[in-house]
């Protein structure tokens, strides 16, 4: 699994894991993010069950696994969190932060030990070990209960499925040329994102944030100007195209 240290600050760091070469070929590629403070850590969208062993093997290069005290699931999809049952055995004392609407659903993956902390529709702030993370509502983008994570210190926005695409293992970890990147993300946003209203609301929300990196759960990371380019592109894009049929 490819590993990149995205940010290293005085009190915390962001590490991204992706492009797992061991994953079965028909499974969509995903990016997982680890935010590590001195004593604790949070894993954002820990990934599918097929990826669990690679993820576990990768994180222990950076910290003892029980330093992970929090997990976050942006929404209920299997590529996001079907590994929950195994993390539940690995980190019995951890807390999972996930949309309140999915609790009864996510528990099907197995959540006997981990504490489920429901995020209310309006979002909330999580504080631990001196770190403050904001759970930003992104409902219906695509999932009906969905959140992004914003870190005001590093100015990183973890955007979940937003900004993602149906990428391949060879794709770069960072967007190199936005125009050339569009074909990779276009269908994904047109077909997976259901609502213009939801899109407008989300754009309005994130435009208020100072974003240096926008990190999707699939595909390449947007840096600097490419973040604004993406937001403008999304603004003009027609979504919900499945309704055309």
């Amino acid at each position: 699994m490819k590993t990149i240290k995205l940010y290293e600050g005085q009190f915390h760091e962001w590490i991204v894991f992706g492009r797992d070469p061991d994953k079965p070929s028909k499974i969509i590629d995903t990016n997982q993010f680890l935010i590590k403070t001195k004593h604790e850590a949070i894993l954002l969208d820990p990934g599918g069950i097929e990826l669990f062993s690679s993820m576990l093997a990768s994180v222990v290069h950076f910290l003892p696994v029980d330093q992970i005290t929090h997990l976050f699931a942006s929404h209920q999809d299997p590529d996001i969190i079907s590994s929950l049952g195994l993390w539940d055995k690995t980190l019995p004392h951890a807390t999972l932060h996930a949309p309140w609407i999915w609790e009864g659903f996510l528990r099907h993956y197995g959540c006997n030990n981990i504490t489920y902390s429901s995020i209310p529709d309006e979002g909330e702030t999580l504080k631990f070990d001196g770190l403050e993370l904001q759970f930003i509502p992104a409902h219906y983008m695509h999932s009906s209960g969905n959140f992004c994570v914003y870190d005001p210190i590093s100015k990183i926005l973890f955007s979940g499925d937003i900004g993602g695409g149906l990428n391949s293992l060879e794709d770069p970890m960072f967007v190199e040329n936005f125009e050339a990147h569009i074909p990779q993300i276009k269908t994904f946003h047109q077909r997976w994102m259901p609502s213009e209203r939801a899109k407008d609301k989300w754009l309005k929300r994130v435009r208020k944030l100072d974003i240096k990196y926008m990190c999707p759960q699939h595909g390449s990371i947007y840096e600097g100007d490419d973040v604004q380019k993406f937001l403008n592109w999304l603004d003009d894009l027609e979504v919900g195209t499945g309704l055309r049929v």
Partner: protein
Amino acid sequence: MRSDIELRTNFYITAVSVSARLSTVLKEAKNISLEAMNAKALVARAGENVRTFKPITDYMVELANDTIRLVEEINRESLLISKSSLISLRGNEAFGHFLKAKNLSKGALYQNSFSSALLAAEKDLQTFKQDLQKNVRMLNELLEEIETRMLAANVVTSTSRLEAATVSNLYRANFEAIVAKFETAAKNIRATVMECRKVLNGR
């Protein structure tokens, strides 16, 4: 029976198919019960002449009731096997994931930090396998019990046949027919039970 339960993905299907075959056993047990009733009625009519048949009819009723009870127990045990085999399969998968992570993380600074999870998964798997093994053993014992009873039924059939031969001409044919039906039912039950055991033990 295999001493070590190999975790076959179709194990729970095996348990279900044992359950499905039991309907034949149940049907034949009910036939025995019916023949026992006929025999009782006949004994009552024939009177003193056939009193030696009385204990045989009692035995038939007892055999039918025991078989029906055993089938109920087998159904319960099969359901338990379906459940415990699924739990074992899931435990086996979990252990596999942790083992794979161990191999992939060779040389990692904190590789040992998940060894307790790996050990717990291994221990769970052993417990799940033992539970499954216990359930399979119980089911085999129940099936064996029916088989033993059907073997005993063979001896009773021979005795009944001898008794039927001594009965007056008026009732002989009736008694012989009852004995023949009893024999067929017992044979069918035994054959089905043997098949169940074969399926169960993967032979």
